[in-house]
């Protein structure tokens, strides 16, 4: 057990994969933040918008009545911190600052209307991963625990979603009738996902959708433990997210984090080998 634990968390990992993970997490977070440039402005909206966010809820997300100008300045600090993290400058401090500020700001949109938390804005795994990047920056060895932990946190997105389905609905979630019902329920008075008609009234496709959804939730975790599984599960999951946008009208904003499962060292080596082959060939041409 101990040796399996140590092998999983502490075996060596190529450096390129750590660097790529840092860049992927920081740029995904930055993309989401730049896509909500006016988030601090919510503090200037009519007071009624904040009626639901009582002192306890505000305290949880470190919303302490700072003036708008300071919150705006902190939001700019967040953007700069994410950029520095992506560039690998002052990484421990910048990733830690970004994680704390993202935890604070990511909640703005959701606590106005709900006390459950901002699950679905794409920030969830980003924040945890930014913390992991900060925590691991003083490691001078190449043990893989930071990357393995980030991958595990992304995989939990799927596994825990599957467990929620099992606990709240049970096995009948994965039936054609339920999947068709979900597709039908996502057809709203003002919005009709473009591919919903392909599934409505087509039980075989609905069975495929239901079983694929369940499989994605429960099999994705295998990508954390097996490179071979990752090569199959990760691309299929990406395709599933694209299909979900078209069929259910739901966008999984943290999808770029699937890139954490790519073996970037292999990509770097392949590019180097190709460049080397080109250089050798052109050298041979010159010699002739």
């Amino acid at each position: 057990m101990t040796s399996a634990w140590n092998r999983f968390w502490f075996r060596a990992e190529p450096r390129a994969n750590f660097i790529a993970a840092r860049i992927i997490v920081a740029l995904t977070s930055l993309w989401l933040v730049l896509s909500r440039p006016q988030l601090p402005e919510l503090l200037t909206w009519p007071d009624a918008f904040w009626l639901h966010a009582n002192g306890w809820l505000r305290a949880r997300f470190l919303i302490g009545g700072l003036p708008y100008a300071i919150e705006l300045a902190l939001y700019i600090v967040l953007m700069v911190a994410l950029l520095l993290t992506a560039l690998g400058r002052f990484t421990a401090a910048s990733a830690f600052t970004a994680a704390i500020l993202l935890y604070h700001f990511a909640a703005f949109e959701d606590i106005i209307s709900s006390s459950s938390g901002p699950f679905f804005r794409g920030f969830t795994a980003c924040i945890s991963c930014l913390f992991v990047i900060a925590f691991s920056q003083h490691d001078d060895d190449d043990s893989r625990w930071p990357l393995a932990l980030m991958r595990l946190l992304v995989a939990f997105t799927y596994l825990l979603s599957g467990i929620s389905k099992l606990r709240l609905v049970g096995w009948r979630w994965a039936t054609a009738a339920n999947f068709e019902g979900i597709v039908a329920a996502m057809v709203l008075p003002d919005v009709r996902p473009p591919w919903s008609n392909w599934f409505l009234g087509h039980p075989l496709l609905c069975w495929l959708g239901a079983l694929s959804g369940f499989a994605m939730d429960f099999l994705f975790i295998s990508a954390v433990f097996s490179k071979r599984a990752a090569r199959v599960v990760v691309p299929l999951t990406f395709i599933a997210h694209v299909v979900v946008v078209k069929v259910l009208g739901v966008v999984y904003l943290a999808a770029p984090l699937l890139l954490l499962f790519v073996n970037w060292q292999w990509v770097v080596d392949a590019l180097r080998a190709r460049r080397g082959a080109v250089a050798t060939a052109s050298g041979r041409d010159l010699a002739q």
Partner: protein
Amino acid sequence: MHLDADTLAKVRDVLQIVRLAIVAGFVVAGVRVMRAPAEKRRRRVNELLVYVLVAHAAIVIAQNDAWPFATYPMMAVDSTDQTAIHNGLSFRVVDDAGREWQVDPLAWSPLYPQSVMGWFEVVYPRATDSQRNDVLRFLLARAESARLHVNRGDRFYGNAALLGPLAAPDTNLYAPAPQSPRPLRALRMYRIWWTPAELSTTGTIRERRLISEYRR
């Protein structure tokens, strides 16, 4: 155990701090790794890893989040009964010719319409008339501003102000909403009732009732 509404509200409030404490525990465990001397680093990392696993196990068992440790109950619903009556809110703006239009999805940036609907579902019923008017006036002004952007062909406004078409969308898809060429005069909020079976096949809704209207 049955708790009255006040006690339940207090329990919910205290739970917010418990959730913060769980996140704080994660941060403390991580900072201990950052500050660990070399000989203690492996042990501190192990403590952090165990903490993350235990925290996730706890939220799974409790089916209660401590965000960013989350249970992701996305689509975790029994939707087999397509004849069940659903209801939701729908907003319309009215131009000075009296014609209704959909609100531009970026009008209420940084919120998307789904979040604004959440506010109306949860908070609006207990807001005072004055607060309701403040909110509706504000939203109408924002809708008018978005109308001008759309009609100018502007692609860089609201949530798309910096990245334009490359900006991340909302989690929910929205249909394109053409805007009136005329100034807006009113914001209407309707409650709509439908069944998924009818709406998805014939596009019909059972009932649409005006809940609120703000005119300027």
